[in-house]
């Protein structure tokens, strides 16, 4: 999902009998749906995996500002501009909440940021696709946020307290994001011929990348099994992908748009749609850095960080002077 390629470091899932008493007590707490809090004992691998997962999630929010930010200055009305700006601002807020959750595990936000900027840490593949037309603002809200919500709603119950609390806040704020996207799509789908074409084109380009957001099938992965045992991953990638397709296909029909998959068909037996898997070689290319916008996205983040350094340093220096002055005044 927003943390598509998190590989846990475990060797496979241990049974309770194989664990030492401390780890067993930890796992039993998770099994009882108790929250793990920052100062509680936790296995090193749990901490490490969480840092990576929450970090990737946070990075995805921040890089995710860019494709939609691309249209803020070109939004077609004052109201659309305000809505889009508020939405992209929320992404910054969500990144902020998530970095703070990661920080409770003993890593700093600046360290995580530097790992993103150097390419050491990843972010969701979806944000390496370009936004070419205004309809893409609709498609991103409808499909990308729709897919994100599928993943984030169950994560409100994740075992790590600060992560779960961040997800609660994020889900509450996100509830308007998908709706504003669909609202744009409705306007386009009911608009002029050019707008209809634009809407269909956006769906064509974002359909498979949206399916990729859930990550490759992990039903046989020991890594995923461990994450699920720890309740830092709540569903398999395939479960979420299926749920997303089942929800989205009727929404596309309502818009009068065609999902770009000729083989999509309702399967009565499984109670869901059959659909074509995305091209996973494309996914791995994007993850490796060869997506259409990887270079631009990282360059934009690096530029903001590098050009902002003097500002961060100056505000800190001023704060320290002010603090020192206060201490002197108090003495």
């Amino acid at each position, binding site marked *: 999902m927003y943390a598509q390629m998190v590989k846990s470091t475990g060797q496979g899932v241990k049974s309770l009998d194989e664990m030492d008493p401390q780890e067993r007590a930890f796992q039993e707490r998770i099994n009882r749906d108790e929250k793990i809090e920052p100062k509680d004992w936790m296995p090193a691998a749990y901490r490490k995996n969480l840092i990576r997962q929450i970090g990737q999630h946070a990075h995805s929010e921040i890089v995710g500002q860019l494709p939609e930010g691309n249209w803020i200055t070109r939004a077609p009305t004052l109201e659309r*501009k305000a809505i889009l700006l508020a939405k992209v601002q929320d992404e910054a807020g969500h990144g902020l909440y998530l970095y703070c959750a990661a920080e409770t595990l003993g890593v700093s936000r600046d360290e995580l940021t530097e790992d993103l900027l150097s390419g050491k840490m990843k972010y969701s593949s979806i944000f390496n696709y370009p936004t070419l037309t205004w309809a893409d603002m609709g498609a991103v809200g409808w499909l990308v946020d729709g897919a994100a919500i599928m993943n984030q709603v169950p994560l409100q119950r994740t075992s790590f307290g600060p992560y779960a609390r961040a997800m609660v806040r994020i889900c509450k704020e996100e509830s308007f994001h998908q709706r504003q996207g669909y609202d744009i799509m409705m306007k386009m789908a009911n608009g002029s011929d050019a707008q209809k074409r634009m809407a269909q084109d956006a769906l064509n380009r974002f359909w498979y990348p949206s399916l990729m957001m859930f990550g490759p099938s992990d039903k046989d992965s020991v890594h995923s099994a461990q994450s699920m045992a720890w309740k830092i991953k709540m569903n398999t990638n395939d479960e979420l992908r299926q749920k997303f397709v089942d929800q989205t296909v009727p929404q596309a029909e309502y818009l009068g748009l065609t999902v770009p998959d000729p083989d999509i068909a309702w399967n009565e037996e499984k109670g869901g749609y059959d659909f074509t898997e995305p091209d996973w070689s494309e996914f791995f290319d994007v993850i490796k850095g060869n997506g259409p916008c990887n270079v631009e996205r990282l360059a934009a983040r690096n530029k903001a960080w590098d050009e902002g350094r003097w500002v961060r340093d100056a505000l800190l220096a001023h704060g320290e002077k002010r603090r020192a002055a206060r201490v002197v005044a108090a003495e």
Partner: protein
Amino acid sequence: MDDTLFEFLLRQGDNTLVLGHRVSEWCGHAPVLEEDIALANTALDLIGQTRMWLGYAGEVEGKGRSADDLAYLRDAWDFRNLLMLERPNGDFGHTLLRQFLFDAFQVPHLKALEDSSDPRIAEIAAKSVKEATYHLERSRETVIALGDGTGESHARMQAALDLLWPYVGEMFLSDEVDTDMAQRGIAPDPASLRQTWDKTVTQALTDATLERPEGDFTHRGGKTGEMHTEHLGHMLATMQFLQRAYPGATW
């Protein structure tokens, strides 16, 4: 139609429209997340104010033009914003300094407009002044911190101040529109706001260890529409692209 009232309202709405647009350009690119979020809040306030000012302007004009029509379907020579606001953002310090110099004008301006003889204007001002007061607090804090912070930040802020200074005078120029507004009790004479502004700015520059530039030359023409910078046309080309490329479409 009440021509001078329409003209006055365009000046208010174009100021917030153009500055809001510039500030929104920072979204996703600010030096730190907290500043990114704060700048977006400022831009959102300004866009909201624009909808009120230009919405009322359209009503006064009486030709059925909406706030969006005025924002998206006028060309550069019809814009009535201050030149300072249409200039490119420059670095973060330049953006915040421009914000501060404008906020320090806008707060007393809006406070005076709260007593406008035109109840609609008084209403818009009452809502806007709360937002502008926060903008001023934040931009002043940031300008002081950046001026005082490090050697590099001090030098950057002084350079930004020197660059912006020839544009501040335009805020206080009065013409026949202002005279008419003042006579009718609709708006204050801008020149009357200079003293308050000077006080706010001088104190902040002192705290920021910045030197107030010499000279009172001022660029002019933005608010009267006689002259704009070349930057405005490019801003409008971006901002108005969809409305121009797909005339009559609804979004």
